[in-house]
């Protein structure tokens, strides 16, 4: 982590250890550059997981979380970047092709637009579905009632 | 009886009678082969198979037949009505027609054509139309693909099977089924042993020809759902089903006549007599076998859970006893009658053994991919069959020119064919060889 701080200085907002796991908060704009650095120099050659966490109270509400793993050093690293509701987050598809479906899922569930993604469309829900379920303000009982009525012909899914 | 029927159609009475018997017995036989298949499959897979309908599922075929008759017979709307109705008919008629030349027993043959074998080959090659037209008529993409694939498969494997038969004809010298069996009894050896490669190629070719086991790609469930039969249902589907099983029995019949000595008793030369009587041990075998089956079913009867099943089991036991009685009675009848009845028994026994081999292969081997199937057919089987024909030809020349013994002349040629087979196998399946080379 020290090497990362030395290399990128201001872009690294904070670096902490939680439950003995390295977490590095970085600026969203430099995400692509830092991930390329991690993959090439730091040998984190596998993107294990890419997901998002919704903190509605913060102005940049979404945390885009990347879990990396390095075969050589048998170590894990977690990159976190803040992303707002409207402005798109940079996509890491060219660095790790694994991110393709994971980013599509984040878009489907949270509505985070990943610019630079080859074909960003919903992966789990039907394409015409309105709303992003995993957002905190999306009530658990809520459903895209008009889509349900139009396609399934029943009043409501519940 | 002669005077009852006007002389002009007397020669036609017996064949017509036989034909009626065969057409009546065939659906039943096909049904029971299905039952046999399911029971054998179950046995190989550590389970029981159909047990519920009748004792040990013996009435299952009848239940299947009734079900098929009652099932709704759907015709897809844009389908070509005429062809849709016509295609399964073609399949079934061709399958049944081929029985006319089959010699079940020395006496039991509808028409002893002097080109019997060729006739059966011609008729069964017409069966392709049933499949191709069926695929086209049901107007669905899947069935058309299935139909084209099965047509290509049939055409290519028929050549291989045909060449294998030719190699046997060289030895038999005649096309009529009866003469072929006669030749085998004269030479005292079944052609399966004198032309092993012919038998192997024919076995593989016949499996492919009836779309079974490793070659059942046209109706490979996983890709094309059910091939050309997808759109058929109810009785129309059962026609295809009947045609397939009839084809299987014909192919088994041809193999038995040509390779396994038709109705000849195994060990035809072995004339050991039961002390004090004129009956040979082997002649008594059929009677003893059926007697054993009868006793076994008798012993099972009381153990059947349901009363009705007890009765059915007793019926089965009675039936077997009757057959055993007939077979035993034949022992004391003049030799012609003895050969007639026992011939039929041995023929059916060999046919069922051949079909058992079909089933066995079906449950152990996965399915070939279409291109592998074609590659095997064209690059391995047909060249091997050609070499085999040449081999047998050379053997005959050796026997006639230098008067080598029938067996001695065949051994070098068979070894030669074996060498060629190894060569062909080497380059034919580079994939598999490469694996074993670097594998464990």
């Amino acid at each position, binding site marked *: 982590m020290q090497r990362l701080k030395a290399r990128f200085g201001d872009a690294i907002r904070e670096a902490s250890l*939680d*439950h003995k*796991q390295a977490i590095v908060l970085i600026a969203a704009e430099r995400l692509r550059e830092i991930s390329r650095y991690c993959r090439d120099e730091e040998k984190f*050659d*596998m993107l*294990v*997981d890419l*997901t998002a*966490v919704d903190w509605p109270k913060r102005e940049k509400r979404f945390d885009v*979380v990347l*879990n990396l793993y390095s*075969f050589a050093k048998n170590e894990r690293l*977690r990159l976190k970047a803040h992303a707002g509701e409207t402005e798109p987050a940079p996509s890491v598809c060219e660095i*790790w*092709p*694994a991110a*393709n*479906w*994971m980013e599509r899922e984040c878009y489907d*569930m949270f509505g985070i637009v990943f610019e630079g993604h080859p074909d960003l469309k919903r992966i*789990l*829900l*039907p394409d015409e579905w309105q709303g992003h*379920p*995993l957002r905190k303000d*999306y009530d*658990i009982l809520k459903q895209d009632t008009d*889509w*349900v009525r139009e*396609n*399934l012909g029943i009043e409501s899914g519940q | 009886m002669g005077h009852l029927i006007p002389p002009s159609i007397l020669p036609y009475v017996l064949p017509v009678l036989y034909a009626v018997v065969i057409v009546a017995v065939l659906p039943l036989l096909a049904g029971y082969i299905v039952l046999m298949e399911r029971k054998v*499959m179950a046995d*190989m*897979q*550590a389970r029981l198979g159909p047990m519920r309908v009748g004792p040990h599922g013996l009435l299952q075929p009848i239940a299947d037949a009734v079900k098929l008759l009652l099932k709704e017979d759907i015709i897809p709307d844009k389908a070509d009505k005429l062809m849709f109705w016509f295609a399964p008919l073609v399949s079934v008629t061709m399958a049944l027609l081929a029985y006319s030349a089959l010699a079940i027993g020395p006496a039991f043959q509808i028409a002893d054509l002097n080109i019997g074998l060729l006739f059966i080959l011609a008729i069964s090659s017409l069966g392709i139309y049933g499949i191709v037209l069926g695929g086209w008529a049901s107007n669905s*993409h899947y069935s*058309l693909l299935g139909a084209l694939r099965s047509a290509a498969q049939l055409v290519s494997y028929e050549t291989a099977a045909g060449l294998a038969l030719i190699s046997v004809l060289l030895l038999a010298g005649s096309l009529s089924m009866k003469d072929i069996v006669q030749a085998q009894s004269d030479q005292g050896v079944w052609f399966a042993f004198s032309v092993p490669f012919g038998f192997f190629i024919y076995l593989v070719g016949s499996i492919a020809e009836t779309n079974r086991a*490793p070659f059942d*790609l046209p109706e*490979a*469930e*996983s*890709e094309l*759902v059910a091939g050309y039969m997808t759109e058929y249902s109810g009785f129309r589907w059962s026609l295809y089903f009947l045609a397939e099983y009839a084809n299987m029995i014909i192919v088994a019949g041809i193999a038995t006549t040509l390779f396994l000595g038709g109705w000849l008793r195994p060990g035809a030369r072995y004339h050991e007599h039961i002390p004090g009587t004129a009956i040979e041990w082997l002649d008594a075998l059929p009677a003893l076998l059926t007697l054993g089956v009868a006793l076994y079913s008798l012993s099972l009867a009381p153990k059947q859970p349901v009363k009705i099943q007890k009765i059915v089991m007793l019926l089965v036991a009675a039936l077997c006893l009757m057959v055993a009685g007939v077979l035993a009675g034949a022992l004391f009848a003049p030799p012609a009658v003895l050969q007639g009845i026992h011939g039929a028994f041995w023929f059916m026994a060999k046919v069922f053994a051949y079909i058992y081999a079909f089933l066995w292969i*079906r*449950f*152990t*081997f*996965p*399915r*070939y*991919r*279409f*291109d*592998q199937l074609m590659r095997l057919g064209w690059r391995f089987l047909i060249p091997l069959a050609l070499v085999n024909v040449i081999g047998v030809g050379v053997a005959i020349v050796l026997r006639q020119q230098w008067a080598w013994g029938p067996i001695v002349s065949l051994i070098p040629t068979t070894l030669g064919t074996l060498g060629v087979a190894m060569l062909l196998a080497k380059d034919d*399946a580079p*994939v*598999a060889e*490469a*694996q074993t080379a670097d594998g464990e």
Partner: protein
Amino acid sequence: MNDGRTTKAISGMDSVNTTVLGADEIILNMGPQHPSTHGVLRVKLKLDGERVAGSECIIGYLHRGVEKIAEHRSYQQFAPYVDRMDYVAAVSNGLGYCEAVEKLLGTEAPPRARVVRTILTELQRIASHLLWLGTHALDIGALTPVFYCFREREEILKIFEKYCGARLTTHAFRIGGLQYETYDGFEEDTKRFCNDFAHKIDEYETLLTENRIWVGRTKGVGILNAADAIALGVTGPVLRASGVQWDLRKAQPYAAYEQYEFDIPTRDTGDTYDRYVVRMEEMRQSRRICLQAVENIPTGPIMARIGKVLKPPPGEVYHSIEAPKGELGYYIVSDGTTQPYRVRVRPPSFINLQAFDRMAKGALIADVVAIIGTIDIVLGEVDR
């Protein structure tokens, strides 16, 4: 319930154009109700004659929104949901989740609980591989192996049933350890199973490994080299078959794996045949682990001392285990309340399925079925 997807499927279905085998491609729809797509996966294949020109997997038919539900359940209440994701390997799902929460709480399960957990997880791995082998062979046309595999799988499920009452979605573990003490015949049953399982595997091997047609159908089909595998994030037997010697049970041991020695089978060409061999070898290794573990199950408590109500300190943790399909990870964020703030599950089948498009390119239709089988996906986990 007529799921919305089917109406979309019918309306959106590209009509199979009438040029029968004409020059232009045909769009062939496989699924969602296709006999060999292991559940409700729909694959849109662009065919050029017999060859697959392009493919697109359409998933989501089994999406139940597990992660959303997690945010409205307490930690213990969410445990049964975890079994429903990869319903073929429910026990290892449970292990992953319980260990992740234990890490969050900073506690450790007692040694006896960890050993019993290891035995049950390894038995579940064998059961999952058996189900994979059966259905995979059935897709390729071998009708018999499926019944042999299910006969053995039945034995394992009996052990689960005796231990925790359920066969498939067992909910066998609790956060902090185990709920039930092992029933008294547990060691004998496992030992009996492992002993006669050895020659059962040889039985499958004789049926398939040397089988010329099986080799012909699987050799060189769906090749995935090591670089692609790592780039695509593929894990588990699929990765090991491509030549990467990596297994979480060795790299980052959890439960009680560090006490046992077993080796990690790998092959190098990364085709369907290699994945078959790797999984068969893995079954043997799991059997070895079970035998070693059953020898000395430590005595002692089976439940760590954690309160009835779990209130983990705010923070986040990512914990992953080696599930039969690959690396199954749990990223749990807690905000100090009794309910997790966010639970993200890293599903191995979902990410392995991503490699399908690359494997299927240029394959024949018959191979598509084999490739779907060899990735060993379970739709419950893919859709969550």
